[in-house]
């Protein structure tokens, strides 16, 4: 018996949308997003890989552009000419991982010494700054830990302190915020749970309490919101779902309803996925929609790793082989 959902994902249209979006640089939206092109590239390329279409882009072209964004210190900028920031350094590393080109970071340049500048961003209390200007956020803790784990040099930072800082951001609802005392938010929870997963520290999470908070993010339409009493949004199909998977509580939501919500957010004509049905699509939500479907074992979508946010085969190749 064929899966009734199997023909409802407009995979080819989404692929075309991603490839087109890359060429369409004159719209206001794409100019506003100019400074985070590195994130955009990661979202687009990972989606292509999940749909088994990574072959349709030129590896050399992408990799050489990525390398134009690297600074002397080792960190990457969101685009050529912008300042380096840890947010874009992770995307750059993930893109290189997708293409199996991480070895490019090992040759020449100061990057090898500084390991992309990340270790220097750790503060005395274990937290991480995003760049030299000192903004502190658990998003940056995740990024540092994820990046260094992919590069197999987590020993460059104080992992125990990093973990303790993340745990200090745990709230009384079981969730995590961006700094101690800050409100729980599904995106932030993904970062904290992901960092704890990568460092083998998930025993520090109150899984039942957090699991209940997360599964109550599912609203009547089947979609997930990011905080209580907020609207559902396709991007939480990733943040909430991956967190629920990492703590083994994903069976607490109705997966079929969520699949339907994501599919309802597709632009069936021009491709792409939006935050909610009938809103304008963008590459960010296209990635989170497809990644969410991957976590829901949707046929035809490659499995994605819930902690590293890269296809399982990519992360297994890096971490499970010598």
């Amino acid at each position: 018996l064929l899966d009734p959902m199997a023909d409802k994902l407009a995979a080819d249209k989404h692929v075309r949308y991603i490839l087109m979006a890359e060429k369409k640089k004159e719209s206001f939206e794409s100019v506003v997003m100019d400074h985070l092109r590195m994130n955009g590239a990661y979202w687009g390329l990972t989606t292509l890989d999940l749909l088994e279409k990574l072959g349709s882009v030129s590896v050399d072209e992408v990799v050489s552009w990525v390398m134009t964004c690297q600074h002397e210190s080792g960190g990457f900028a969101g685009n050529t000419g912008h300042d380096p920031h840890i947010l874009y350094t992770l995307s750059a590393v993930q893109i290189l991982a997708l293409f199996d080109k991480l070895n490019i970071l090992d040759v020449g340049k100061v990057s090898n010494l500084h390991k992309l500048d990340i270790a220097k961003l750790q503060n005395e209390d274990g937290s991480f700054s995003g760049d030299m200007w000192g903004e502190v956020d658990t998003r940056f803790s995740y990024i540092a830990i994820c990046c260094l784990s992919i590069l197999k040099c987590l020993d460059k930072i104080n992992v125990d302190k990093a973990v303790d800082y993340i745990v200090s951001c745990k709230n009384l609802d079981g969730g995590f915020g961006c700094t101690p005392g800050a409100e729980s938010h599904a995106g932030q929870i993904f970062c904290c749970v992901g960092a704890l997963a990568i460092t083998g520290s998930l025993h520090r999470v109150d899984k039942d309490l957090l699991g209940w908070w997360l599964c109550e993010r599912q609203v009547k339409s089947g979609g997930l919101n990011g905080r209580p009493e907020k609207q559902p949004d396709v991007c939480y199909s990733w943040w909430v779902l991956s967190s629920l998977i990492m703590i083994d509580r994903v069976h607490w939501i109705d997966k079929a309803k969520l699949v339907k919500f994501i599919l309802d957010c597709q632009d069936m004509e021009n491709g792409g996925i939006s935050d909610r049905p009938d809103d304008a699509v963008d590459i960010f939500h296209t990635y989170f929609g497809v990644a969410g479907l991957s976590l829901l074992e949707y046929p035809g979508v490659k499995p994605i790793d819930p902690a590293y946010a890269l296809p399982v085969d990519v992360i297994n190749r890096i971490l499970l082989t010598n």
Partner: protein
Amino acid sequence: MHGRPRKASNPEDEEASAAKAVKLRVLQSQFMSNHHDKMYNSLFFCYRNLMIGSVSFRLLIICCLLDVLGFWASSYTKEAIELSTKLLEINPEAYTAWNYRKLAVEDTLSRIESDPDLFKSVLDEELRVVESALKQNFKSYGAWHHRKWVLSKGHSSTGNELQLLDKFQRLDSRNFHAWNYRRFVVELTNRSKQDELQYTDDMISRDFSNYSAWHNRSVLLSSLLARNADGFVPNQKIPEEYRFVRDAIFTDEDDQSGWFYHLWLLDQTVNVETPLLTSSWPSHGSRVNLSGSGGLNDSSSKLPSFCSESGSFPLILYFDQDVGGVSSSTVTIDSELKGNEDLVWEPVSNKSSEVSCVWVTRLKYTSTEPQKEYKVKLRIGNSPGIVSSRGCNFSSPYEFVFTAHVHDNVEGSQEGIVSWTDGFSNWDAQSVDLKSLVTFDQLNAHMDLNWRQEAIAEEIDLFRLLSDSKIGKLTLARLLVAEAMISDDAIKGVNYKEILKLYNDLMALDSSHYQYYKDEHTVALLHTVTSSTESLSRHLFQYSDMNNSVCLRLNKLSLSRIASVEKLLFVQMLDLSHNELHSTEGLEAMQLLSYLNLSHNRIRSFSALDSLRHVKQLRVLDVSHNHIGKHSVDTTRYLCSSPLSNSEWTQDEAGRQMPSLATKYWDAYFVLRDLNLKQLDISGNVIAGDEFSSFVTQVVPKLVWLDGQKVRS
């Protein structure tokens, strides 16, 4: 784009958008060019410093001259800064522009330090730019951080900030950036926590559906309670807070804002911070039969015997929460058994962790002097050192005594195949025997029960009025569990009957969260099964094939998770077949477990069996007819020690010889190689097959039986 409608673009809109785009692009490239000029200048500046002491004296002199003339400073021109203002007002997310402004501000401040008015006006201008950027995008991380950065430079008028925030927070009362900034300003200005608590009162009274305000309230209140601030004592404040949050829940029972706050209050009511010992094996006053390797033929006792090839048996301590610091200095043992002077206690948990609610050590014994009885006495917590992960001391010293009875070393070790299908008969042990096996948890003598019981009783009465709704039923079930925790057995029995019914109702009422209620139902069911010797004995059987070992059979109960393990520490043979389990999390506490049947469950991968790695005694495992290999998503991938979680790096001989299979079957590889299995059943799983079987026999060198076939003798 968030919240922007999808529509067919009309030519006029497209034109307008294109024009805007051109304008912004010009602005951005002008800015970038200013930024780069500055960067090259500062690079040159660095270069100049490096040259000091080198041979380029002429160049150095030129540089110094230029420096004196103020050439370097001039690159932050008024025009360039205004350009960055314009850019940020259109696109507050252009982070490089914020960086540029910070460089410019630092540069200016370094030259005008002596002039406080000028100093203030520079920072005022930054605050103004942030404010207009926030009007464009209230969620801009860069803008909020820039404001914090400006204030940390020593801006004097921090008082204005709370007024500005009031304005913003009225417009968007859930904006978490604003709340974070509020906490930052409160700390900077040393505003009192009581005042901030009042602010959450005001926000909630204006609109109770404000989760952010409830969250902040929980943070403030727990801090005030923790430091015993004036008037903040739990027996007064917590009942008050129940009344406060009740209004919110009863106003709109579908609004989640108060749900989590109520659950937090409930937790504060029944759980005390001081760690307690829940149970142990052996338990107080019990008699333990020990023998050497092999089975037993002890007909004098109806009690199961413990046998071990290693000549030692585990001592298990089970606490009500994670603790650290269990050691031979915090737990003293008086024993006639020789060779136990330097006992090492280990947490039963993840390798990297030094805390656990289960601790184990191994006590040595020899069977050279058979039929002898030895008394063992444990004293826990006489000297300080056992501390909960929240930093509270185990403060109620406790001691218990048991007798170890060493038997003959019986010939012939257990090499036969264990069948789970027949050979079971009802166990006719007396309940007095059973009582010595199972310890029942003690109440905390130091706990002030009165106000807690009253508060919960009042809540139960009220939530019965709401028991048509989902949150009404769920809260009632949780309140009944809480009441049972701090009440005697009679109340417990009545409560659990109702709790089971409530969860059944919830499964039908809120089917999206069916499995959540199912799991809670299972917890309640296992609680009921283990609540008395009578109910437990209905599940205990004798297994004739193994010298009448006692087997706990919890099969066919539709269990979906593991619970109440603290009551089952004595179990050596456990049948959990034909349930709905997808993980063995929790079984790690059962340190005596040797035979485990998990067939016909919903195990999806070997990583779901990770907790069994701690069960050193396990020899026979049946995971046939599960879902291993069927799913592409592994929900226990990160609950298992492996290189993915940076908690396992070593490869043994088998892994080195079969690198590609060790990668392909990584979860089986990392879990099975740590289990000392003699018998394993994996048939009826997608993963099963010749390749996997031959892999398993190499990874588990002591395996004798695989899927009913002898693979080694």
